């Protein structure tokens, strides 16, 4: 019995972690109403099977941030959620708000076709015999989906905020194994031709040459992981997982000029160089291969 179960788990994990499997978290944020529940927002996060989902819900008195992770086991899946909650509990004698912070974990097991209902602000679901006794609050419906996607590795996010007065956010969290880094040298209004390199974190650095106004500049660049999480919130929400750092050094000395860190979100980040130029580095997901 035990070996067959173990084999089954291994085969399932091997199947799910194959290059063609893509995981999707589909969510709907729903608010209870007198007549029918109201959908406040909906969205989806997809990516490789190790993709996590970071969900942020804010109200006037409560902030809930949660990181959802899955572990496939046979035809079922373990859904784990690491919650980081801040609740306003009152005001100090000087009139400043007092917040309490809480970190906790929830795990449920469900089938792939099941719907998980998450009550982020607490309050037990109201069942018929106890109607009127339970606390009804906003909930999030989550459906997990897996499909064949032909080796697509980059995550995707879509989010439709129906009620724009609400403060919700949805993010895919994937630890990048490779990154596409596009480098430019900037001085005043002059910009060098972009130089793109595919880099792997913690691999040996590479030498790149950028030409600005006919003057070549040689740099040694390498990718590293950021420092481990220092606060409870960073650890619970894995804020450092999808961040990479570009370490820049001159070719003749191992002492680095500096480093820039960020997510793979096509946002240019700048690093001033001793030559007076500015290095602009843009992190992006690499193309499929």
């Amino acid at each position, binding site marked *: 019995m035990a070996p067959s179960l173990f084999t089954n788990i291994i085969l399932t994990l091997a199947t799910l972690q194959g290059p063609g499997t893509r995981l999707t978290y589909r969510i709907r944020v729903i608010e209870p109403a007198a007549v029918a529940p109201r959908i406040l927002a909906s969205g989806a996060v997809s990516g490789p099977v190790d993709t996590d989902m970071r969900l942020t819900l804010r109200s006037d008195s409560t902030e*809930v941030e*949660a990181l959802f992770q899955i572990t496939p086991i046979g035809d079922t899946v373990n*859904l784990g*959620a690491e*919650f980081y*909650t801040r*609740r306003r*509990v*009152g005001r100090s004698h000087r009139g400043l708000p*007092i917040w*309490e912070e*809480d970190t*906790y974990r*929830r795990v*449920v*097991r*469900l089938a792939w076709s*099941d*719907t*998980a*209902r*998450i*009550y*982020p*602000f*607490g*309050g*037990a*679901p109201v069942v018929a015999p106890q109607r009127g006794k339970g*606390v009804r609050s906003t909930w999030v419906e989550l459906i997990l989906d897996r499909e064949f996607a032909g080796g697509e590795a980059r995550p995707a996010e879509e989010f439709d905020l129906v009620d724009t007065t609400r403060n919700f956010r949805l993010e895919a969290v994937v630890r990048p194994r490779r990154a596409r880094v596009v480098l430019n040298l900037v001085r005043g209004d002059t910009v060098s031709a972009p130089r793109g390199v595919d880099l792997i974190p913690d691999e040996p650095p590479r030498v790149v040459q950028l030409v600005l106004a006919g003057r070549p500049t040689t740099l040694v660049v390498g990718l590293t992981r950021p420092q481990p999480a220092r606060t409870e919130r960073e650890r619970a929400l894995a804020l450092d997982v999808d961040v990479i750092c570009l370490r820049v050094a001159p070719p003749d000395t191992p002492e680095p000029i500096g480093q820039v860190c960020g997510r793979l979100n096509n946002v240019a980040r700048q690093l001033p160089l001793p030559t007076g130029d500015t290095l602009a580095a843009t992190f992006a997901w690499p193309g499929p291969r």
Partner: protein
Amino acid sequence: MTEPRDAGTSGLGHEQWLLQIDAELDGELSLVERAALAKHLMTCAHCAGARASQLEVRVALARSAGNPHAFVVPRPAIRAGTLVLWVVIALGVGLLGGWIAQQRWGGPGAGRSLEETRGTIVVH
């Protein structure tokens, strides 16, 4: 108190004379009123008996207050020790009640239990 009556006191009924007796024993009558009362007591055995009865009651009250030789009925007085004791007891009860209320309902975050404020996941 009733007005001093220097004339026409003979027309007073027993009820009024009993009030005059009370006032006299409390030292609240003028000389004229006391004279009228004394004159009435000489002719009214009922009022004289009532006066003696009132005096007996006042003697009993003075005895119970621990001062049988008092000239007037001593007023009840709260002793300093008793007052301090009751103040201390009241403060203690107030502090204890406040502490219990603070534990039960007070302070930031009070109300729902911690577990009730935490998120939950339910599978459908």
